[in-house]
């Protein structure tokens, strides 16, 4: 009796506090979140990726047994596309993310090729090479900067406050090209080597998804997520050889 009343009290306190913290959490506790997953593929002939000649920077060249290829259009098995960013462009966009996004320069490559971050989410850029790089995110909406990072100098920490797809380049090593995808949502996914992506933990409801590829541009689709269900969405880009 005494014990049960205590547990009831505890539940009330928990629930009420949870509710007071966030209505969403409260409903979520009753309704299971859904998932959107799918595949990115292309039709037509994509451009042939070229091998990168790193002869200029022996310290990097010797890190790669086989030559690194350019990454502007990376294809996977059965006409799938890698490095395509899929994100919620309309619908519940989730709260701001605070954990820092890490961007590495290793073997004169950008890892990952596309770094996705929310607005004002901290970004940390590291130089793991024995040579000095210069990071030049060529922002147009956000403010542009260009700074070199000698080996052994501390990480460059920064944030972007407006959504934008920012091409990133290193002038010292002209083949180094990557992207910062700054999104106004924290619900996003980047397609893997098999062109697969999945957005987990979406509250049930209607969403507009946008898929972005650096050469082929964007596509959007509407999707409805049911409680605990998994919606399938596929994007197909039209590829040209040149």
């Amino acid at each position: 009796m005494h014990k049960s009343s205590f547990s009831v009290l505890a539940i009330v306190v928990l629930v009420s506090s949870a509710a007071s913290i966030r209505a969403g959490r409260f409903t979520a506790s009753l309704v299971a979140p859904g998932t959107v997953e799918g595949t990115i593929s292309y039709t037509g002939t994509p451009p042939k990726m070229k091998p990168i000649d790193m002869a200029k920077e022996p310290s990097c060249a010797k890190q790669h047994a086989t030559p690194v290829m350019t990454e502007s259009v990376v294809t996977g098995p059965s006409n799938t596309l890698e490095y395509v960013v899929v994100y919620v462009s309309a619908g519940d966009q989730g709260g701001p993310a605070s954990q820092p996004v890490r961007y590495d320069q290793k073997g004169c490559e950008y890892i990952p090729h596309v770094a996705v971050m929310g607005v004002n989410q901290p970004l940390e850029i590291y130089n793991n090479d024995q040579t000095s790089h210069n990071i030049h995110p060529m922002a147009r909406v956000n403010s542009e900067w260009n700074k070199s990072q000698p080996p052994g100098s501390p990480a460059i920490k920064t944030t972007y406050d407006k959504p934008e797809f920012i091409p990133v380049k290193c002038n010292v090593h002209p083949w180094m090209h990557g992207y910062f995808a700054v999104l106004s949502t924290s619900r996003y996914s980047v397609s893997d080597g098999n062109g697969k992506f999945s957005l987990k933990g979406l509250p049930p409801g209607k969403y507009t998804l946008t898929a972005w590829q650096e050469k082929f541009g964007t596509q959007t689709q509407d999707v409805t997520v049911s409680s605990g269900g998994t919606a399938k969405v596929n994007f197909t880009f039209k590829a040209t050889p040149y």
Partner: protein
Amino acid sequence: MNSPDSSHTARPAGIWRKVFSLDHKVIGRQYLDLSLVAVTTGMILSWLMRLHLAWPTRYIPFLGAISREATGGIITPEYYLSLMTMHGTIMVFFVLTTAPFAGFGNFILPIQIGAEDMAFPRFNMMSFWVTFVAFIVLVAAFFVPEGPPLSGWTAYAPLSAVGKDAGPGQGWGQTLWVISIGIFCIGQLLGSLNFIATTLDLRTKGMTLARMPFSTWAWFITAVIGLIAFSVLLPACVLLLLDRVAGTSFFIPAGLVISDRLQPHAGGSPLLWQHLFWFFGHPEVYIAILPGFGIVSHVLPAVTRKPLLGPRVFIVCMAAIAFLSYTVWGHHMFMSGMNPFSATVFSVPTLIITIPAAITTLLWIGTLYGAKMRFNTAALFCLGFISVFVSGGISGFFLAQPAIDSYLHGTYFVVGHFHFVMGVASMFGIFVGVYFWFPKMFGRMMNETLGKWHFILTFIGVYCIFMPMHWLGLAGNVRRYSAFTVDYMKGSIPLHRFITVAALFTGAAQLIFFYNLFRSRFRGEIAPANPWQATSLEWTTSSPPPHDNFGGHHPVVYHGPNEYGVAGKDGDYIMQNSPEPEPVAAAS
């Protein structure tokens, strides 16, 4: 501020009259103070560069705090280039041009020709303050968001013209650089105008051109060079500024893709900037060195106690150099892509200009023959000047030939060459001036013992710094590199470390000079009117001279400045203003 109390209102007025003084002596000292600040800045910048070259990843305390470019106190490549650019610009414009020409010239020239002041005291005052503003603008470039400029003191277009896309330092930093140099040109034009008018019109009775001291001749000729050179650099700066801020295309050709962006400009000619710049740039070398010629030739007779050998020949040589300096600018552009025929055309006058230079050197050495040397510090720096001028001048033989320049161009050989002939030689000329004229300027003697230590350490130091650079150049070591990652240059790093150590050592030796300068200013023994038994007019008036230089009267001149080693009434020399008759030279 407008308090009725007169004593309060009077004081600031007095201060302003001091600050914006019209007295050429005050203005000359202001110029020298400015270049003292500038040379200290430039020297510190060069230390940072040398430290970085020797130990590229070494953490430098406090640096991270004062500059955005050196994250965590480690000098980035762009920051190294900024240091280099600022070092070059500050040293060439605000030290080598201001100190020997504007500084000493302002103080001494009117006195040497027996004038009360410059022809246009207001222009004179303006020329200093304009120069001062230029310096402030340049230093401000250190603290702008996109970083200080990094396209070198030559600011080659299009790098200097296209703006931010071309990388750090190409934003406001470069714009401020152009503005600063433009302002500086105006200051120098006002100064040159003043020097020329003064020398032509304000000479006292009996001061014929032939009787002018060699230093005055040098300043006069330098003023003429400067007048032409800076009135060409100014338009060049205007064009560059318009390219940067107004979207014109004087220097920027079509179809440039910078940082993946196609530039909106079309049709400009990058070589046009190089031609305009070097048309100024080469004469600038002589603007820096000719006053040194004059000062050394002015001091040498006084310390050897015999007349300068071939005084007229010497002046003709300076004039010849001044004239030829306008026919040789192309030798900076042998590799620039201009028509290769013109390289041969430019190389001939470049080699010919070594003849008058060689003659003057021989005249100085010949003057030493049979001398009765007085080894005061000024004398030692004269000798040092001759030695480094010979070293720097001779390496010019290599660079004057397109065939050899095609190997040595853009290497440390060039750096060693122009630091000897333009940097160190001019600096030694300045030191001669300081040690020789300090008594006249401040009425106190400098400490000779400290002076001699300063000389010998500096002399050894500069050879340890700049001679090895010639060897680096022969080995193909490229200048303006912030680190030596290229395989064939890695072997040069030990020698670079040696140079760095030598540079720090030489820099430390300058502390002796600074100490001597400030101590003597207040503690030095009182100087007589003519401590060196010299002949020119500045030694006929008190030390320091009264406001109107000669206390109400105007000296009358009877002799040339070169009357040494003769039986004069008060020794082995005859003052220019002493009425005694021309004696027969007592020399055998």
